[in-house]
């Protein structure tokens, strides 16, 4: 029998393992229960002082501890836990021996404040210069800082622990990073380079400077009280996104390889698409053309018609511009069918997990397919009349879902979309 291929003659890519952590909890079971119950993971930040900040809430993950604390260390720990859950479900390979490459979406890395302050304090006087800091940094006292704050450190440590093959790839495409990690895995399997890929996305960036940076760009919601009401995608009174932490890990395999080892298939990555927006560094083209192109490319890649999409897991950041542009782009592609597609944004509950969002939301999309139940968009009290989506507001909705489109539209013009289905087309 000929190996099953998709409409373009390529190997079909399936998901056989998933692991997830968000501000709602650890693992698929907790996440799905709380997400569909309409719970929020957004809280007032307690990890560090919030004095002087305009935004004081986030979807921080405080139930996972790392010592010494760093956002990069937390990102790595979250990724480890998500991968362990995904591998456990998939049953692929053996401990410390994953039979394929690692594609990791991770936030850009740099030396963080606790470590920077520690170096400054060793100088022993208050009037020093950057060159003094430089001279105080060597001699091996702070060697761990080098190893921790290499951009490749998280991926390299994960590759070491889980025995992935070849050179692991660390990538950043801003808010689309998680989707890009999946896309790279899909492409590698379609090329026939590998039968399996470990696609992971993680973000542990709730720290003072990261919050200040987004705050200074006026990207964050400042509706701090109550914190769980701040993220309100598609609502008229939305005012920005809520930073959050999370990780998602997916084991991708060719359909053949998964069937050959008798793996349970959780879903299919039927299509991926990507198109860059060159309009502005933080804003999308007002006509939505790049996002439209991205959605069309994704449909074409999957060999599907717009009418075959029966749910959209939206990027839905809750920023005034991005939500509007998403509706514009979606309605341009789906036309009259738009109003028939239930739309929801997981960011209303878990916040914006930034580098992790694409993978976290792909996993929620696959759980939606499995449970035939669409998780709610929280805080949908004042619908924005300019965004007449069929928003699944506040309460989960049971529905027949066969194909989900999951969108990621981010800073730097990064647009990526995925189509996930239950069964091979």
């Amino acid at each position, binding site marked *: 029998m000929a190996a099953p291929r998709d409409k373009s003659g390529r190997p079909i890519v399936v998901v056989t393992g998933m692991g997830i952590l968000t501000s709602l909890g650890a693992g698929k079971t907790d996440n799905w229960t709380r997400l569909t119950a309409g719970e929020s993971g957004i809280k007032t930040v307690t990890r560090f002082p*919030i004095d002087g*900040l305009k935004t004081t809430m986030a979807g921080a993950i405080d139930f996972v501890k790392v010592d010494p604390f760093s956002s990069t260390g937390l990102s790595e720990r979250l990724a480890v836990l998500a991968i362990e859950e995904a591998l456990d479900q998939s049953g692929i390979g053996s401990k410390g021996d994953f039979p394929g490459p690692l594609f990791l979406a991770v936030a850009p890395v740099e030396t963080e404040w606790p470590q920077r302050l520690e170096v400054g304090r060793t100088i022993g006087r208050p009037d020093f210069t950057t*060159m003094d800091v430089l001279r105080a940094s060597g001699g091996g006292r702070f060697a761990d800082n080098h190893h921790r704050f290499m*951009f490749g450190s998280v991926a390299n440590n994960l590759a070491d622990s889980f025995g992935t093959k070849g050179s692991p790839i660390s990538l950043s495409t801003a808010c689309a990073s998680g989707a890009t990690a999946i896309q790279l895995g899909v492409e590698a399997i379609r090329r026939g380079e590998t039968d399996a890929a470990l696609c992971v996305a993680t973000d542990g960036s709730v720290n003072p400077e990261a919050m200040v940076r987004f705050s200074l760009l006026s990207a964050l919601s400042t509706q701090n009280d109550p914190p769980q009401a701040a993220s309100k995608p598609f609502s008229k009174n939305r005012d920005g996104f809520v930073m959050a932490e999370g990780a998602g890990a997916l084991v991708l395999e060719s359909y053949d390889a998964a069937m050959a080892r008798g793996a349970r298939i959780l879903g299919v990555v039927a299509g991926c698409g990507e198109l860059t927006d060159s309009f502005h560094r933080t804003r999308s083209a007002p006509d939505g053309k790049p996002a439209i192109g991205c959605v069309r490319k994704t449909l074409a890649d999957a060999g599907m018609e717009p009418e075959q999409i029966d749910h959209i897991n939206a990027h839905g950041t809750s920023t005034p511009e991005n939500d509007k542009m998403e509706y514009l782009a979606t309605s341009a592609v789906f036309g009259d069918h738009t109003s028939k597609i239930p739309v929801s944004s997981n960011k209303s509950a878990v916040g914006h997990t930034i580098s992790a969002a694409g993978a976290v939301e792909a996993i929620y999309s696959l759980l939606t397919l499995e449970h035939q139940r669409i998780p709610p968009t929280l805080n949908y009290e004042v619908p924005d009349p300019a965004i007449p989506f069929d928003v699944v507001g506040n309460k989960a909705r049971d529905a027949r879902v066969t194909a989900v489109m999951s969108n990621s539209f981010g800073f730097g013009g990064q647009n990526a979309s995925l189509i996930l289905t239950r069964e091979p087309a």
Partner: protein
Amino acid sequence: MAEPKEVWITGIGLISSLGEGLDAHWDALSAKRVNVDEQRFAPYIVHPLAPVSFDAQIPKKGDQRQMEAWQRIGTYAAGLALDSAGLKGNQEILSRMDMIVAAGGGERDLNVDINILTADAAGNSQPGFLNEKLMNELRPTLFLAQLSNLLAGNIAIVHGVCGTSRTFMGEEASSIDAARIAVARIEAGQSDIALVGAAHNGERPDLLILYEFGDFNLTGQYAPVWQRKDKPGFALGSAGAFLVMESREHAEARGAKPYAKLTKVVADLARRKQPGAVTNSLQAMWPKLGVSDDKAALITGTTGAEPVTSDERAFLAQHPGLAVRATGTTFGHTMEAQFTLGLALAALSLSRGALYPANDPTGLEVEKADAPTQIVVMGAGHWQGEGLALVEAVK
């Protein structure tokens, strides 16, 4: 699977401590010129960017203001690469051109940092002090000059490269993987044409601090890479290196001339706890390249840091016929850009029918009289990751 498509390098953009453009680089390499600054960050040594007028590739001052040096270097080099491939302003191709950028992050505002550190050292750091300083003193748009994926973002905005856009991170390995994935995609027909490259600003105290944590910086007096045995380390260098890669049929259809063919890129992550791990990894990858000429040339991004440089020497000792050139001697260590810099110099050499002269008092590098037909490009990260590529003349 269909036969893999041939990948051509049809555009090269170079800017570094030696100058900008292919002629300037060829002349400087031929004259064995090295531009090194031992004073500015003494005792730390850097290879500073040669003076450049960014207006030539980034015409809008507003765009330049939105970028920090590493992004300007990269956006400039990307423009040179598009020019050299004859693609500047070709909307039809640029709008579907794929891009993989290897990037670190952007410069910090060192004045803000030092104010916070000194205030903290003086005991003046109540809860919320850090927040207040950052909220009041950070320039709002600085973040955009720091985000890794915003080099690609700026290239899209300034030059209109708008197909897929992916940013790989992870120091030296990131550009090896960028080239590897771009080649794999073109070979498999997933992409017709791609812009691949990286940029590095080596004149950054915050980066010197990062590498000083691991005692990797070269200090005191400059020495060529192969002469650093007793005093290992690297001198950071500034450079932007971008390549246009495309399938042979795509290039021929638009009448583009190749500089060279990029036949193979391989990469791995040796577990370096074992001595000799990088030597073994490079040896294991070597047969995959298909080098047929035992007198081929090899351009390496050797850092001068240990123990990896010794591992690379041990690997080279097993291939005694190769004419080796270490880019670190001339350009310093340009981190993410080092591997694409090596690919660019390999393609340039093949297109000029000569390998540039050796620049090595230790004699490890030997002259090559005849025209090279195969040039291997090698990269081994100062801490992690290693890879090889084979660049060949187009007959």
